[in-house]
């Protein structure tokens, strides 16, 4: 996304945590007011914010909730030092927010398959809402997690979606189908294609990178368009530090992503293979890079 003028929200906007919801044993959703200089942020599903935990770190987080009053919410999984510190914070504590950043999902006409894996479900939540408004009859949501306990927003999704619009899976079979979201997609594809009829099918997804690379293979095989949200280490969020660049297209995950489409994903040598660390050094995702 190319901007015309610098955003006032490139500087962390400190704001009190208004409420905290424990979603799963490891995931909490934080709600904050993000009305900067009287402007309610306009958020596209799939965009992210940089969350400053004063004294600790600043980390990218998908925006999962937008309320009418300008409050936004984001769901955090306790996985590292920064997220752990965030998990210890309470209502009234100050955090800094800047953004929203990046290009979100471009919801297209036709049949939509929206897929979330693990904490990646946070990134697709707003898109599910938007798709429900736009074309509820041509929608299938697939969510997966390692175990039943880690299925994010499960009750809410079951409330807003009809059983025919939703498939659930877990790696260990503790809820829904046993297996990965890619397997569930392939298993149901014939049925989905019947439902979609002559409509174009687009898959939208966020989850672990291995899930996304497998998903791209499935989508390529079955000639489905994919939009996937990627994650990379970043410092600035606005295209200057270069740490989130994915080779060889000069694509910056913070500005051109985090959501990229099949045409781009198919050209990326780095997708599923390489990341850059805090120093800018490139390393294989499957290596024990310290």
């Amino acid at each position: 996304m190319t901007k015309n003028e610098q955003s006032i929200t490139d500087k962390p906007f400190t704001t009190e945590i208004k409420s905290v919801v424990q979603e799963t044993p490891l995931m909490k959703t934080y709600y904050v007011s993000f009305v900067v200089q009287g402007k309610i942020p306009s958020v596209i599903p799939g965009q992210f914010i940089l969350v400053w935990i004063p004294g600790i770190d600043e980390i990218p987080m998908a925006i999962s909730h937008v309320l009418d009053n300008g409050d936004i919410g984001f769901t955090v999984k306790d996985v590292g030092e920064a997220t752990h510190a965030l998990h210890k914070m309470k209502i009234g504590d100050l955090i800094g927010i800047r953004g929203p950043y990046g290009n979100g999902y471009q919801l297209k006409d036709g049949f939509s398959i929206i897929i979330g894996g693990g904490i990646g479900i946070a990134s697709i939540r707003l898109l599910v809402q938007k798709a429900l408004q736009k074309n509820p009859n041509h929608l299938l949501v697939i969510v997966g997690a390692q175990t039943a306990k880690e299925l994010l927003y499960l009750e809410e999704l079951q409330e807003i979606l009809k059983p025919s619009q939703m498939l659930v899976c877990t790696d260990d079979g503790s809820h829904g189908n046993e297996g990965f979201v890619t397997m569930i997609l392939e298993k149901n594809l014939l049925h989905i294609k019947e439902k979609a009829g002559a409509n174009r099918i687009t898959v939208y997804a966020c989850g672990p990178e291995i899930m996304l690379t497998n998903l791209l293979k499935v989508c390529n095989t079955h000639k489905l368009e994919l939009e996937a949200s990627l994650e990379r280490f970043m410092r600035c969020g606005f295209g200057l530090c270069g740490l989130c660049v994915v080779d060889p297209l000069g694509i910056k995950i913070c500005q051109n992503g985090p959501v990229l489409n099949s045409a781009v994903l198919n050209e990326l040598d780095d997708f599923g293979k390489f990341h850059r660390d805090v120093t800018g050094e490139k390393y294989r995702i499957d290596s024990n890079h310290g």
Partner: protein
Amino acid sequence: MKLNKPLNVSIAGLEFNSPLILASGILGVSPPTMHILADYGMGGITTKSIGPVKRKGYPNPSIIGLGNDTFLNAVGLANPGIERFSHEITEIKKKEGLVVIVSVFGDNSNDFARTASLAEKAGADAIEINISCPHAEVSSIGVDPKITFEYVRAVKKAIHCPLFVKLTPNVTDIVKIGMSAEKAGADALVAINTVSGLAIDINTHRPILAHGIGGLSGRAIKPIGVRHVFNLSKAVSIPIIGCGGIFNYEDVLEYFLAGASAVQLGSCLYYGYDIITQIRDNLIRYLETRKLDSISQLTGLAHHYKEIGFDD
């Protein structure tokens, strides 16, 4: 100078097909991205500052925007170290016509020299030494003419390619430092690095950047850069590469008129790669309109106006 290429410039024997050079610290890690920048109109690129060993730098927030196209950063010289970065230099060098400048630093003059030498072996066309990063230890070098002389001399001895010295504006008299660098063998000066600054959050009462003090870049520092280039160009005879707050072709022209022979772009890439092409095309248009054969003809023209008080 070929008449059909009005933006070609020559610095220390290196031919640039555009006077626009990527500034150090911006995007400078991915080889394919450096090649893309060349396609958009950069004549040269400067890598992130590379040191002798891997360095993590400071935690986030390390780069923030302050509004009005102005930024504050304290990355803290994060880099993979010269040994691991060498193959990236070799990759960047594969683009024909792109001048590759490797920015280096170290804990002492031997470190600087060794890192510079390894960078040259990996394919660097020129070495830029960072003695001026305002939020790291190296800033203490670039504020002292004697220490600057020692470091420039050490690096110059270790390499065969041109040596550029990036100067800090956070000094009382930048001209003394520049003259010292010239005397020690610098082939060009780069002015200016970021201006030391601080931003404090009024709700938490805490500096926003994890490191506290940072380096200010962007639109706000352009007049500071133009002034320093002007004063330096009166005092030294080596070329000066102008840097600081360039967002459009007018800014480039100001730096040239002050005495620059090329410029570096950094913060303006906030607006994406297209801004490079826009600046380049507008420069060509300006030269055509004025019937000028080469942008180099503009270097230092503002010095003709001696009646204005230019000293502090």
